[in-house]
Every structure is written in C-alpha cells, then in structure tokens.
C-alpha cells in the first residue's frame, strides 16, 4: 500500500516558492472565470455560470481548476488530451474548439476552447474553458430534444483549429455559426472564451519569466502530486468498508414502440473503501437507453469525484486537479448508461447521471461512514428551455434555465433550501432580467412547502416556479430527473418530494407532462415546475420539537405533514 509521506516536490522546491507559484496558478484559473462571466453574452454563462476554467500541463493533465463546476472535475483533462491526440504540433496563436462527447467532450452544448500556452517557443501547457452554449443546433431550440442518436443532438465538432498561429480560420467559424440559432450571441460567447484563455496565457508566461521554465514545470507537476498526497491522507481518515446501492432513474424521455410510458432503468453501484483508495464498480447497471440518458465514462467519473471530495475534504484544503483522482478507481462496462458508446445520445445524462451517481455514492457509503455522508439532494439540474419568436421584437430567442431543489440533510444538521448541490453550481436567472429578455412572465418563484424529506434532520426544500407564455407559442424542452424516484433519505430519514412538471393551457386544460422531452406551449399557457426537495437524515421521531414548531411557523412544513411525518400533536 502507498504510504503517504511528504510529496517529493519539497525535496526540490522550498515550501514558500511552491505555495506562491501554486497560488498563482489557481489565481490565473480564477481570473479566466471572471473574464468569461463579465464578457459572455448568453444568460447561462453570464448570470448562471455554467462553465469551467482550467490550466493543464503539456500532457493534458489538469493542474488547476477555477472555483467552477464540480461536474467538470474528471472530464476536462480529456478535452485537452483530445486536442493533443488530434494534432501533431501546435504553434503560438493556435486556438482549438471541439465538443464531441465521444472524444473528450461531455454533451454537445458544452463547447471546449483550448489554447496551447507557449513561453517563448516552448509549449508549457494549455488553457481550456468548457462553456455551456444555450444552443448548438438540432431540431429543438436549446438542443435539449429527446432523440435517439447523437447525430440529432446538434453540431458535433472534433478538435479543430479555429485560429492557426493567430490567424482566424474563417471556414470553421462559418460552419459553427450556420449551425446554431442566434449565432450573433454565440459569437459573443466564443469571443469571451478566447479572451479568458488569453488571460491564462499571459499569466503563465509571466510565471515562466519570473521563475524559469524548469521550476514552473516542476511545480506544475508538483501541484498534482501534492493534491494526490492530500487526497490519500484524507481518505485514510475516512472509515473503511464496502457497500452496494441501487437506484432507479425515471426514464430517457423516449416512449419506445410498445411502451405505454417512459420506462425507468436501473443503476447499481458497489463501492470498496480501503485505506487511501476508493473503488467504485457499476456492474449490474442497465444497458444504454435509446434516449439521451447515456453518460460517457468521464461524466460518470466526475459525479464520483465530486462525492469523494465532499466526504474527504469538506474544508477545501485539497486543490482540485488531476492528482486528486489517481487514487480513485471507477469501473463500468462499455455500453451501459454510465459508460455509453457512440452513437448513443447523451445530452440529458451529462448532468442527470452525474448528479445521480454522486448522490448514490453517499448512499453506498452511508452504512460504514454515517458521519461523512449526506442524504440525497435534488438530484437533477431541472432544466427548462424555451425557443421561438419574441412578439415584442420579432426576433428569435432561446432561453435556458436551471431551477434549484433542496440540498440534502446531514448527519448533524438540516439540509439547505434551494441551493445547488453536488456536481452543479449554476445560478438562477433573475426574474426581471428574464422577462426583459424573453417573452414570458414568471407568476411565482417560491419555496415548495413540505418538499423537504422529514427526518431528525430535514432535507432542504425545492423551488416551485411558473412561467406564463406571452405573445407567441413557444417550443419548450424539459429535463428533470427524480419524478418517480424522489431523493432518498438516509438512516430512517424520508425522501424529499419528487419532480412534477405540468402545463395549464388557456382553455383551462391542465395536464402533467413527462419530465423529459419537448412540447409546444401555446401563447397564454402556464408551465409549472415543482423541483425536488432533498432527503432527510435520521428518523423523524427524533426531530427536536422546537425545530418542528419553527418549520411550522415559517411554513416550511404544513400542519398536516407535521402530524403525518412527525406525529406532531399540538
């Protein structure tokens, strides 16, 4: 077994220089994030923050990730490695772009921009930004349709050079912008990604000037060893054990011939935690499905990594980079929903499967590490896309929103209401900005009473949000897991309330919708999202009556639920 001693880097570099250069690398990644957010055009980037920024070594291993989305922890290095594999060489001024989930990407809307970094004439690493574009083509505005092949999901770009030695390759740009809706807005996003990478390029060049190439390269490697070392030590602190967890996903958004409804499928996980390693095996998981609920392996791994880091490093002492995961093993059979092969469609799975396996790992470890896990959170990114023509301007629009559910209950405290959890950390879109930009009126946006799973510690509440469609009909797509499989509780805690999505048409007809797939919402109709609350922790009977009274006073729970779930009788 590996015995974690001091990383070797400290035999070659003094601790002060190491700390200083390491912090500079992470600052550079953080600066990329700011440039992107402040200059991007689409709400999903500028206000929701659906992107990640990283600095990579010449092999494509991630040296530093900004304080960005956990979902990209495991898959970003593949985005850079794909570029390295596709091209023999790079010259200063090259910029590459790609989005193929089966070659380093995650799902087609996530567009990677990769910039090789040179110090004088030597390649020293790469900057990469993965950003979610609100549209990448396909038949559905927002590219969130339920189709059965990746070819229907939008434009698929292998690693291509958008700039060669500083010169723009207009042909590539033309191909991209003739395949997406609102190309003008996409260009603003692409420019922002390029500008953010440029920031990393100048920062790394400054570091190379100041510390010399050799020392900088040494420290870039050392930072990953350092994270590995810390991760091993943190894992040693967690209890050893073995656990199995099974969970059911609602479906893939496709009602196949002969089916009455969207059919659920199963994910099975077997975890072994021993010493400073952790291994997860997905044997027994269902084969890949026709609809876009198939995850490339890197997407699955990211979900696992997120849960591990949350358990092992709650105080954020371990800098996130490729070194963290050397001690984590994730195994899954080809052709399953957690290790999809081309040409399976993938767009929903990117977040929904990643959320799922993250929550499941807490479940699988809850018996032997009860103090280090949390009950299931919202378990979905709860996405609504709308597309059509704005009656006010006559211009086409695409809107993309993610709505938040609850954050799971912990072994010693309640969960948190409507807070991003697990692999996601995107923000909501302000109602006023949304209504000024798109032809909808939000009728309410509020906490969903009784949605938090009851328990000694209650799960966080989910949100309820309703949109009135104004002017013209809109082409809507939804993607929301945990309708028939609500977020589970742990150690006697009850599950949170599951997803429901419904539409009320102007004629007064009301219907519940499948929580994945597309539909047309006529002008005047109201779309209603009820996003899951999180699971509770511990038996509800053990809840402090003061906390029940306070929940009642604030309307987090109803009197009816207090009586039913807690046996409350006052």
């Amino acid at each position, binding site marked *: 077994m590996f015995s974690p001693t*001091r990383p070797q880097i*400290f035999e070659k570099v003094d*601790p*002060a220089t*190491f*700390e*200083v250069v390491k*912090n*500079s690398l992470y*600052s550079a990644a953080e*600066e990329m994030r*700011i*440039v992107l*957010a*402040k*200059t*991007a*055009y*689409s*709400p999903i980037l*500028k*206000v929701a923050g659906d992107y990640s920024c990283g600095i990579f070594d010449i092999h494509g291993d991630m040296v530093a990730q900004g304080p960005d989305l*956990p979902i990209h922890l495991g898959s970003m290095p593949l985005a850079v490695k794909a570029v390295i594999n596709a091209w023999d060489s790079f010259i200063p001024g090259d910029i590459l772009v790609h989005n193929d989930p089966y070659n380093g990407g995650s799902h087609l809307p996530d567009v990677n921009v990769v910039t090789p970094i040179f110090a004088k004439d030597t390649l020293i690493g790469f900057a990469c930004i993965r950003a979610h574009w609100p549209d990448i083509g396909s038949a559905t505005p927002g590219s969130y349709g339920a189709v059965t092949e990746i070819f229907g999901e939008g434009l698929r770009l292998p690693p291509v050079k958008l700039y060669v030695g500083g010169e723009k390759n207009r042909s590539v740009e033309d191909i991209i912008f003739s395949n997406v809706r609102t190309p003008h807005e996409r260009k*603003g996003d692409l*420019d922002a990604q390029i*500008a953010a990478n440029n*920031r990393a390029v100048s920062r790394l060049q400054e570091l190379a000037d100041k510390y010399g190439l050799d020392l900088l390269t040494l420290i870039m490697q050392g930072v990953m060893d*350092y994270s590995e070392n*810390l991760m091993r*030590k943190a894992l040693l602190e967690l209890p050893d054990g073995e656990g199995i967890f099974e969970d059911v996903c609602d479906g893939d958004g496709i009602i196949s011939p002969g089916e009455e409804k969207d059919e659920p499928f199963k994910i099975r996980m077997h975890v072994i935690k021993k010493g400073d390693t952790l291994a997860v095996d997905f044997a027994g998981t269902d084969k890949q499905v026709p609809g876009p609920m198939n995850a490339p392996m890197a997407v699955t791994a990211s979900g696992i990594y997120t849960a591990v880091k*949350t358990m092992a490093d*709650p105080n*954020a*002492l371990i800098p996130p980079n490729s070194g963290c995961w050397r001690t984590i093993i994730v195994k899954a059979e080809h052709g399953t929903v957690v290790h999809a092969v081309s040409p399976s469609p993938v767009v929903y799975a990117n977040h929904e499967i990643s959320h799922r396996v993250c929550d499941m790992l807490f479940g699988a470890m809850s018996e032997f590490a009860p103090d280090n*896990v*949390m009950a299931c959170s919202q378990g979905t990114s709860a996405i609504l896309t709308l597309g059509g023509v704005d009656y006010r301007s006559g211009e086409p629009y695409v809107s993309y929103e993610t709505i*938040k559910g609850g*954050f799971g209950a912990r072994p*010693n405290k309640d969960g948190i*209401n*409507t*807070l*991003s959890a697990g692999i996601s*950390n*995107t*923000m*909501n879109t*302000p*109602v*006023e*900005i949304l*209504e*000024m930009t798109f032809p909808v*009126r939000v009728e*309410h*946006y*509020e*906490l969903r009473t009784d949605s938090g799973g009851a328990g000694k510690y209650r799960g966080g509440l989910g949100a309820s949000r309703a949109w009135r469609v104004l002017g013209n009909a809109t082409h809507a797509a939804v993607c929301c897991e945990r309708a028939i499989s609500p977020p589970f509780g742990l150690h006697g805690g009850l599950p949170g309330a599951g997803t429901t999505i419904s539409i009320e048409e102007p004629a007064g007809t009301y219907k519940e919708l499948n929580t994945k797939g597309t539909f047309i919402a006529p002008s005047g109709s109201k779309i209603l999202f009820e996003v899951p609350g999180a699971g509770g922790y511990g038996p509800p009977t053990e809840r402090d009556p003061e906390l029940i009274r306070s929940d009642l006073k*604030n*309307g987090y729970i109803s009197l009816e639920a207090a009586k039913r779930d807690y046996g409350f009788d006052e």
Partner: protein
Amino acid sequence: MNWRIGVDIGGTFTDVAVVNTSDNQINIVKTPTTPDDFSKCVVTAIETTLEKQCIDAKKVELFSHATTVVTNALLEENGASTALIATRGFRDLLELRRSARSHLYDLFQEPPAILIPRHRRFEINERISAEGTIVKPMSEEELGGIIKTIKDSGVESIAVCLLFSFINDKHEKKIGQILRSEFPLMPIFLSSEILPEVREFERTSTTAVCAYVGPILRSYLRRLEEEINKLGLPELHIMGSSGGVVDTSECLKMPAIAVESGPAAGVVAASYFGNLIDYPNLITFDMGGTTAKASLVKQGKFEITSEYEVGVTGNVNRWLHGTGHPIRVPVIDLTEVSAGGGSIAWIDPAGALKVGPKSSGAKPGPACYGKGGKEPTVTDCDLVLGYLNPNHLLGGELDIDIEAARNAIEEYLAYPLNQSIEEAAASVIAVVDHNMAEALRIVSVERGHDPRDFNLIAFGGAGPVHAASLATALNIPRVIIPPIPGGFSALGLVTTDLKRDYVRTFFNSLNDADPGEISQVFTEMENLGREMLKKAEIKQNQWEFRRSADLRYNRQAYELNIPVGESFMSKEDVGDLIQRFHEQHHNTYGHANIPEPVQIVNLRLSAIGRLGKIDVKPLNSSTQHARVAKCEKRTVWFDYSGKVDCNIFARSNFTQNLSIDGPAIIEATDTTVVVPPEWKIKVDPRGFLVMEVLGNV
C-alpha cells in the same frame, strides 16, 4: 483657530484625527475600543482629545465618524426584527437568493443567514410588467390585513420590494404612504427609493439590509448625537462606503451606505494626500492585525464598485462569495485578504506552508506579546527577522518577548520543515507577502492597470513593514509612508467631502438613445443632490456633480462604469461615450467588439460638497545628516542578501529632505518602516517618507 475632528473605530484602538485648519497641525489620539458599546469609546475618545489638545468644541467645524455598527450587526446577526412586503408569489426571493453555493465541497456548510424569516415575509396581490405597465392593480384591502398582523408582532422596521418597481414605483409608493401613516415612528424602506435598479434579489437584499440595520444605526447615532451635542460639537457626519461623508438624516435614509466606513476613510485619506504631495496615482495598502486591504487611486480618484456583499467571511474577495448579503450601493473598490500581523502560520498535512486565514486577533495576540498566544504569527516572524524592535513596540507601551516568538516558530514551523528559525520565518513572510500581493494585483493588473504607473501608499500598523517587498513583487517603483500610518484612516475623516450617490436604471440601447432624455434623468438626480447640499449649507461654488453611466454590450450581464460629461446633448456626445466604453472594455478584458451595440443599464450621479482643503504642517528643515538621526544597529534578514547589520532610525528625529540608503529600519510609535538593501528613502517636506529603488532616483 478652527478644527476638524474624525473618529475611526478599530479592533483594538479608536483613533481620533485632529486637524487645526489654521496651522495645518495634524494629530492622532488613540484610546482603547470598547466592543460592548461603541458609542462609549467614541465619546471617551472625543473627550480625551478635546482635553489633550485644548480644543474649544465651539471651534470645531467638521465632526465625522467611521462607524462599524452596520457591518457588525450583519456579521453578528443581531439586527432589527424586520418585515418584508413582496409581490404575490415572490416573498421567498431573499431565501432563494441566486442559488449557487460558495463552498463547493463542504458537506457541513451553513446556509447563508436569512435577514427576514419567512413568517415575517408578506405577499400582496399586484404586478407590473417588464415594460412597466400595471398587469394587476395593488390590493389595498390585503395591505390592511398585513398591517394588522405586523401591528401585534413586535416588528421594528419594514422593507418593501415589488417586481419591476424600478420602472414603475406606483405600487411601492402607495404602500409606503399607507405604512408611513400607520406606523409613523417605524423606519420604512422602499426598494424604489433605496435602489431603483434591475435585479429583484439584489434589490430586495439591499432594501432588507437597510431595514435590518436601520433601527440599530438610528439608536446608535441618536445616542452619539446626544453626547456630542452636550459637548457642544457640530452636527455628526458619517463616512459612507463610496468615500464621502453624509449627515445622519441622509445616512438613516440609506443605512447600507455605512458599510466599509472605516476602510473607505483610509482610501479617502490616501487619495487626498496623494494629490497634496503630487503622487495622484496610488495603490493603497492597509495592513492591520487580521486583514490587509488594497484599492486603487488613479489621477486622485478612487475606484468605485457596485458589486459588493456585506457579511462575507473569506480569503481573497476576487469574486462574490454568495455567503454574504449583496448590497448594490457604490462601495470603494477594496480587495480584502485575511492576512495581517496576527495571521497564524501553519503546515498542512502534505507539508505545505500556509498563513491564515486564522488570526490570533487582539486577544491573545502574537506569541511575542506574551498574552497566551502559542502559535507563530506574521508579527512573530517579522520580529525574529529583525524588522521589529526586539524589546518593545508602540513606543514602549508594549513589551515584547522575542524568545516566545522563536519558540513558537521553532515548534510549529522550523522543526517540521527542517529549517532554521530564521529560514522558517522568512518563508512565512514570503507566503503572506504573496497573499497580499494578490490583493494588490486584483485591484490593479486584473482591472487593466499597470502597477508600474502607480505608487504604493502603505498604512495600518503593519503596512510599512511589508510595503517594499510587495512593491518589488509587483514592480511598483515607489512606496509612500504617510505621517502616522497607524492612524492614517482617521485622517480620511477630516480631509473628506460631503458626498451622496444616486442611481436610476435607464434600460436602453445607447446607439439609439435620445441624449435629451438621458440629460433629463441626470437633471432629476442632480436636483436631489442640490437639495441635499443646500440643506447641508455648503456654499454653491463648492458643489460638484459627477455623472456616469453603467454600460455593456447588448447581451452582457456586467457593466463597466464610464464617466459622462456635464453637457450631454448631441449625437457626438453619444458617439464619444460609446468609443470610451470600447476602450475601457479592451483595457479591462483584452478585447472590444466595435460593431456590437452598446446598452445603457444605469445612470449614476454623485453630488459632492467640497469642504475646503487642508495641508499638512511641514517638518522643520535642517541640514542634519542621516547619521545623526541613527539610534542603533541590529541584525536583520532580507530576502536576497540574507543577514545584514542594519541601521535603526527613530522617525521622530527626522527632518525635511533627509535621505537614507537601505538597508535601514525606521521605528515610530505606531509602526516600523522596513527599507531593504536595494531601496533608498527620503523625507518629503511634509514628513511623508518616499522610498524608491536605488538607481531609480
């Protein structure tokens, strides 16, 4: 003989700055801070000052104060019992927030504090559209019900924030009118009065913060006013977050502007004295016991941001953390880092050296204070390296135990790192200096300013110790140490102007905008400013109005603030503004998108009443040579040169035009100035120390 007095409350000491406006004599009086009731130490400090300096209260022309009441109420969560009235369906905005978490992997994170609990958040039927039309009229009947509930509930203040009230404030106004007649004594805050600006959560949060701290601030200011009236002092003024004072009635209209009151005073002082001694481009560096703060002054003007969260605890504030409460009022653009003299150095499990964010605070303080601190701090390392006096600090008031510092460094750092005590101490200083340099980088490089065009002005008790090292790291050519750096922030309170900021959302394409309409909005804000200045009895020739616009490319979400000239009437003015936006965008982010239409989001106006200049009394001139001022020698460790036998000087002996080559240490009662070997320092006629790299002079 007239006087100006400013009182600044710090963690350990309350500083009073006194200026005699006839002979420009400046003094700082320090008294201990009383954390249980701040008004007590303010009054004691003033009484002590009036007595010590033999000042007739009747002769004081300006009395201003930097308060920590607002920031503390939010950090300690002991604000007023507040109610919120919101549009039906939206009472939870304050709790839904923006839904991102600040700690990505913290299993045990706490939810952000909720200033107004759900049972005191009320909803009312009404709705205004994105175009400002009334979709659903406001229900006065429902309001009656809400008022009834509030009446018996012990509520101390009310915040009202309705959707789109920044475009159409009719409903909010009506509610305000009814509430104010029903509750004549209760502070009522309307979002359309506080912050008529788009984004409902941020507007609600700003309004809620005002309502939450309003009653506490009011009772504090009333208590203080009563006391200072008794002393016969003039009307109380409060330093606002954007770097100007307002009187108490303006402050109570908008309590959120009293955040960062003290740090703002420091930046005001820096910009004021920078202009006075002809160094108008400054990066300010204020290092105290637990934090270091940086900001930027360009051509004598400090930078302002309206993206600010109060009540945040974190390391470097590069990005909004999401743990605090956003307030969208103009705040001096400060970056704060948890690095101060009391920051504790430690080794993480993988063997890397860390400094902070934990601090030994005022109690027990660094190991060398001998008050029970066991872990090594930055001050202990400064001491061991010879930067600080090995026997006593604060002009002899604080005895120093250097052995305690050496022991702490040896046990916690040198032994595990297998280094000598001095090597370990030097490592700590390298790391903490880097952390602080990050803060300086954020306000300069990351905002598109080249540090080589700026001078570093260092203050706070520990600032001058570390300044030269930071300047070296950022290639800043010159360091300025003001007289009395330990109480420098208080000087901002006596060198300030009266200032109040106004904002109006004006959502429009700049390319198509009617310049007349824009001018109209500015004029409306200017009229409010004129009223305020008239009421404050500022002479009209001392009025100034600064106009600016928050601009962005059509589809961006973040704006850049660009100044607008006083006459803004023609299409050329519009074209010029667009051009300056492109330039600023390029400087800040590295690219501009010239063909893209530019959007106006907000128009802003600052109304300023000038309070008259003051100077600093010059030092005595003398032909005395540097050697005469020297008092002793000791061994000091420097980064590149290692161990050096170094001259020690007493600042009190300094005279005009004195010049000293490094290495040297200059000791004063409130701080120590470190002059590294490759630097030289000279004394300017007003007693400012100007330090430059040798060969640059």
